[in-house]
């Protein structure tokens, strides 16, 4: 890892074949490089600066169920109401 003149740190990342192929395809669709695609992906998962540590977990999952918080008992106990 070393620093470029433009305030960027250069690093190497190993990706498996399938992930690389998908990243390349998505990057091409967006008209950006794979490197930029990876940078954006990392920015998307990092907590915003100045936010408390637990905020990194906000929206951790996407169940697809807008009633998710009102159907917990059905998942945990089977059913209640």
């Amino acid at each position, binding site marked *: 890892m070393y620093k470029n003149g433009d305030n960027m740190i250069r690093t190497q990342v190993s990706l498996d074949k399938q992930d690389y192929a998908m990243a390349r395809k998505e990057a091409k669709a967006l008209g950006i490089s794979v490197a930029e695609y990876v940078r954006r992906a990392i920015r998307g998962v990092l907590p915003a600066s100045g*936010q*408390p*540590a*637990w*905020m*990194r*977990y*906000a*929206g*951790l*999952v*996407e*169940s*697809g*169920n*807008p*009633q*998710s*918080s*009102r159907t*917990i*008992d059905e*998942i*945990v*106990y089977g059913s*209640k*109401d």
Partner: protein
Amino acid sequence: MKSCMAPKTECYVDTSALIAFLDRSDSYHPLFRKLFSSPPRLVTSALVVAEGHGWFLRRYDGNRAIQFLNFIGDLSPLFIQGFDGQELGKTSRLVKRLANQPLTLADAHGLVIINEHRISICWSTDRHLGLTGAKLVIQGV
């Protein structure tokens, strides 16, 4: 009007609030995302932590369940009330008193804590947590 964002207000947090914050599909996610970004002192039951862990375990897998525990560990404003024999006694009495309500032990322990801490605002999307008079934050307190 009392606000849950006020620094000295202690609010009770139940499983539904935690899931609404963690699941971006939930319709209350934006509200709880905002609330958790600047929380007051929070209190919950150890049974809520068990329930949340169980939700992730059954809905997803062990890795997600561990991430849930990591979230709880990072949530420093949260005080977790343990559940021992004495708490079981108090909670059992409440369950029997409200036998007409389909309360889980976690819900009932929450109501016990709300009463003992004189908490007036509850972070929950579950109407059962309002049974003894606490206002649910989704009602716009």
